[in-house]
């Protein structure tokens, strides 16, 4: 019964201070929503991608080598730690449909069990059929039963599509470094039986990759060394999951959301704690007498402390529960649906990370319950009689500023009152500043994020690449062929490929390499400030992010693995900025100087007269317009848009809740003063500034502090994009101004609600006793 009465009391108290408890609830909900929502995203990617890896029986290591002999295969199989080795053949082909998209062909022996596609719709692979990329099929309106012709090694082969599937290596499905985001209508995979592909190679069975399954706990480096020994110079490369572009992207995304899920809620946890603190301190002070009565009635210290602690626990618990439902639905589902454009997974069913949710819930309950407990502990030492007596009037104090009589005496009394009030309530001031700071910071972060990402397409497609069309050449198309064609326009040939580089400290990495002429008219490399960087004559240029990742400085020498498998040291002469696709650049003359042949793989073109005959000729594998590359990329900015929108929303909630709370707190604390002033004949517009100035003041300071916070948030966001992306966020004046304006709008709306509150002041209460 006793507990029942106290419980009823807490419900009534909460109703009485509804806006305050609602604020705590909202803040707690937001904190848990963000944490749970972001957790659900990486958890989903993690579980769904691992599920796909498992379903496709993804291998652990890939050896790139051409047609390994049975002896070599036997040797590989006998490396200790290797459980299984299978031969594969992977080659790019051109689908003979509109736009001539690229299909990566996976040709494998029927008995292969590793790296098999995960069939979503249709049956298993038969001798003559093909399994097609589900996304590719959807984008190109193909389905099971359709016939599809592909061109491999200049031979056209027709397949019947028997099934649609997903593949581990095609979760993040981009063709090469020139595309920034996946475009399923232009690139996909097809799995066929090895026997069908032999017809393109004159009946010879082709293999270019060995997939290995390793025993768990094996050291990959020792395996790599043994593989090195077995194949010697014939070895093209060894790669693991961490080298695979798609898998790298997947782990990168998981990492990104893991960081965000830890960093972002922190601010909201902090604000929830502080708001609870301010609310509970006031509540306990107001209920001084009631606590005295309870004590006088014989309630124990413990039960009173628990009573007030329970306020925080109830609200925190409710917030945690609400966050559990809101977070995954409002944040998780929304962002996952946008991530579909980036990551192709068989299922996007949202997975929740329950341990993290429980941890966060306990944390928020500790925060709200803890400060509630602390705020009522203060009064516990007092005797009931003392508590029952009226509280002595609040002390006024002289403040520091008064030591400068010149300034002080020149101030109007109202300014004096505002300054004294503000300084006396440092807590309220700090809270408000924190809230505004967070709001401005989040908004600046949101704008910069959007700017950074849309900046990628601008720098890449407007400043760096100035071509109109990129034409991928067939392998047999030679430099001389191109010259003979006399194409009408600015033409530049480039060689693009992958190359293994080794830094001084031994770190190896497969990176993109682009080779073109020194005074390239259509590729304009630049540094991070946008200044043009010319290719060095005796050395290479490296992208800034790659240099950072491999700890390489200008002037360092790195080792390149040449096509004959020998190594050569080259000097890094320049650093260049590339938003996406990190790699190295050099001139064709230097490329030849280090002993390689310059063999163009693509033409960059700026037409005077577009040569349709050439584009449709046998020289050309495929071509793409820069404008379509660019618009594809920009069309995929949705994820970023919704993320930015969420940041602004959270910023808004933060500012609203904190400013409203502090404004109301300020109002309640002074309502008697304000009523007195009203009786004395002060007009509404004279009373308003007394309450509102503090809000204006903290808004101003908060916005200033919010600028560096925006920088920090921007940094966290930029880092979250992973190794392949090099994002630079500039916090510009216009962004700051816009963020400030939005913050001020939020703050003004809050001020209006406080003004409404001021209008409700009952003068007659000024005449009553202090309660």
């Amino acid at each position, binding site marked *: 019964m006793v507990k029942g009465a106290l419980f009823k009391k807490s419900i009534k108290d909460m109703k009485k201070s509804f806006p305050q408890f609602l604020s705590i609830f909202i803040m707690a909900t937001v904190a848990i929503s963000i944490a749970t929502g972001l957790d659900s995203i990486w958890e989903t990617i993690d579980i769904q991608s691992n599920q796909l890896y498992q379903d496709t029986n993804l291998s652990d290591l890939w050896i790139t080598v051409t047609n390994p002999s049975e002896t070599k295969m036997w040797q590989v199989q006998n490396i200790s730690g290797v459980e299984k080795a299978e031969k594969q053949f992977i080659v790019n082909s051109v689908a003979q449909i509109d736009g001539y998209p690229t299909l990566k062909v996976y040709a494998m022996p029927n008995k292969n069990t590793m790296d098999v596609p995960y069939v979503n719709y249709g049956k298993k692979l038969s001798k003559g059929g093909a399994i097609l990329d589900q996304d590719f099929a959807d984008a190109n309106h193909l389905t099971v039963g359709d016939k599809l012709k592909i061109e491999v090694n200049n031979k056209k082969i027709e397949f019947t599509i028997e099934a649609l599937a997903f593949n581990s290596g095609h979760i993040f499905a981009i063709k090469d470094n020139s595309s920034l985001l996946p475009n399923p209508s232009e690139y996909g995979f097809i799995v066929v039986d090895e026997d069908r592909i032999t017809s393109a190679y004159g009946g010879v069975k082709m293999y270019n990759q060995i997939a290995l399954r390793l025993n768990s706990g094996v050291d990959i480096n020792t395996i790599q060394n043994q593989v090195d020994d077995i194949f010697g110079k014939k070895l093209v490369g060894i790669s693991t999951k961490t080298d695979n572009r798609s898998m790298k992207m997947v782990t990168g995304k998981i990492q990104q959301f893991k960081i965000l899920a830890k960093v972002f809620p922190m601010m909201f946890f902090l604000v929830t704690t502080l708001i609870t603190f301010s609310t509970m301190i006031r509540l306990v002070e107001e209920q001084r007498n009631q606590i005295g009565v309870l004590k006088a009635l014989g309630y124990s210290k413990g039960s009173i402390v628990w009573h007030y602690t329970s306020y925080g626990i109830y609200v925190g618990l409710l917030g945690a529960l609400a966050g559990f439902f809101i977070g995954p639905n409002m944040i998780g589902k929304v962002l996952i649906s946008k991530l579909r454009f980036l990551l192709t997974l068989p299922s996007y069913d949202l997975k929740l990370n329950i341990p993290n949710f429980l941890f966060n819930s306990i944390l928020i309950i500790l925060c709200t319950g803890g400060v509630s407990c602390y705020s009522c502990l203060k009064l516990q030492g007092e005797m009931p009689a003392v508590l029952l007596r009226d509280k002595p009037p609040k002390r006024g104090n002289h403040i520091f500023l008064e030591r400068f009589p010149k300034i002080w005496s020149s101030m109007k009394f109202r300014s004096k009152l505002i300054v004294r009030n503000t300084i006396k309530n440092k807590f309220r001031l700090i809270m408000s500043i924190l809230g505004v700071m967070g709001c401005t910071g989040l908004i600046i972060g949101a704008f910069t994020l959007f700017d950074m990402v849309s900046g990628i397409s601008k720098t890449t497609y407007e400043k760096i690449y100035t071509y109109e069309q990129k034409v991928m050449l067939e392998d047999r198309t030679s430099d001389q062929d191109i010259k003979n064609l006399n194409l009408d326009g600015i033409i530049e040939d480039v060689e693009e490929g992958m190359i293994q580089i080794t830094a001084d400290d031994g770190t190896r990495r497969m990176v993109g390499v682009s080779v073109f002429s020194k005074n390239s008219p259509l590729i304009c490399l630049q540094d991070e400030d946008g200044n043009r960087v010319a290719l060095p004559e005796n050395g290479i240029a490296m992208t800034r992010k790659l240099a950072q990742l491999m700890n390489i400085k200008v002037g360092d020498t790195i080792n390149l693995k040449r096509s004959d498998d020998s190594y050569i040291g080259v000097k890094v002469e320049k650093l260049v900025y590339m938003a996406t696709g990190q790699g190295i650049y050099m001139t064709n003359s230097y490329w030849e100087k280090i002993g390689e042949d310059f063999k163009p793989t693509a033409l960059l073109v700026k037409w005077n007269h577009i040569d349709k005959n050439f584009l449709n000729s046998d020289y050309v594998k495929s071509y793409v317009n820069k404008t379509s590359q660019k618009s594809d990329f920009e069309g995929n900015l949705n994820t970023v848009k919704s993320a930015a929108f969420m940041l602004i929303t959270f910023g808004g909630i933060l500012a609203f809740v904190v400013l409203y709370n502090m404004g109301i707190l300020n109002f309640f604390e002074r309502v008697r*003063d304000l009523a007195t002033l*009203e009786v*004395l004949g002060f007009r509404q517009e004279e009373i308003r500034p007394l309450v509102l100035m503090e809000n204006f003041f903290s808004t101003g300071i908060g916005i200033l502090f919010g600028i560096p916070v925006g920088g920090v948030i921007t940094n966290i966001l930029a880092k979250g994009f992973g190794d392949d992306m090099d994002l630079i966020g500039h916090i510009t004046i216009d962004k700051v101004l816009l963020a400030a304006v939005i913050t001020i709008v939020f703050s003004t709306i809050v001020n209006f609600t406080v003004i409404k509150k001021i209008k409700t002041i009952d003068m007659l209460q000024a005449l009553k006793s202090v309660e």
Partner: protein
Amino acid sequence: MSFIQFENVERRYIIGDNVIKAVNDISFSIEEGTFNVVLGQSGAGKTTVLNMLGGMDLPTKGTIFVGDEVVSKLDEKGLTTYRRDKIGFVFQFYNLVPNLTALENVQLAKEICKNPLDPKEMLERVGLAERMSNFPSQMSGGEQQRVSIARALAKNPQILLCDEPTGALDSETGRKVLKLIRDVARNMGKTVIVVTHNAPIAQMADMVIHMRDGQIHEISQNEHPQDVEEIVW
């Protein structure tokens, strides 16, 4: 015509289904420069009279004249101006702004009116020359009430309204405060209306309005008001 005139004034409150006539059809008049006491038990309607006279409440019927103004016809803004220019308030619980010093509390009043009196001089008059830079929390109840009186007078109002000014004070201090109100008002020629339930205070007034159940029970004139020192309660 008298300085203050209530004509058939009624103030009803509707609380739920009940209509409560806090003040029911009262008429009286007060001359300028006099010291008046409205006397009655709690619930007699005296505070309602004070509120209406002070421009904090309007009658539901009847007319209130103060000087050349019809207070009962004023709108909210007009009431504020009326309070600002004509009324000085002394509260039962002083109502000083805790964050302002004694002097600043008095300056507060000065800021908003047309012909304010010097705040320092006012504080000197109420005997607080030494305590000007003290905060309310550093002063006794009597001292705080004196600041409140100084604040009311600094506005240079025509009418000084005091709601149970001695209610929160011990009798000795209360007597001093009353004497102060009376002397200062007399010197400055202010009209004073004190609302109290404390019958002995009536002995010092020029006129006493006895209220009972929202109506005027009796209005008595004191030909020879007593000095405060002679009153015992």
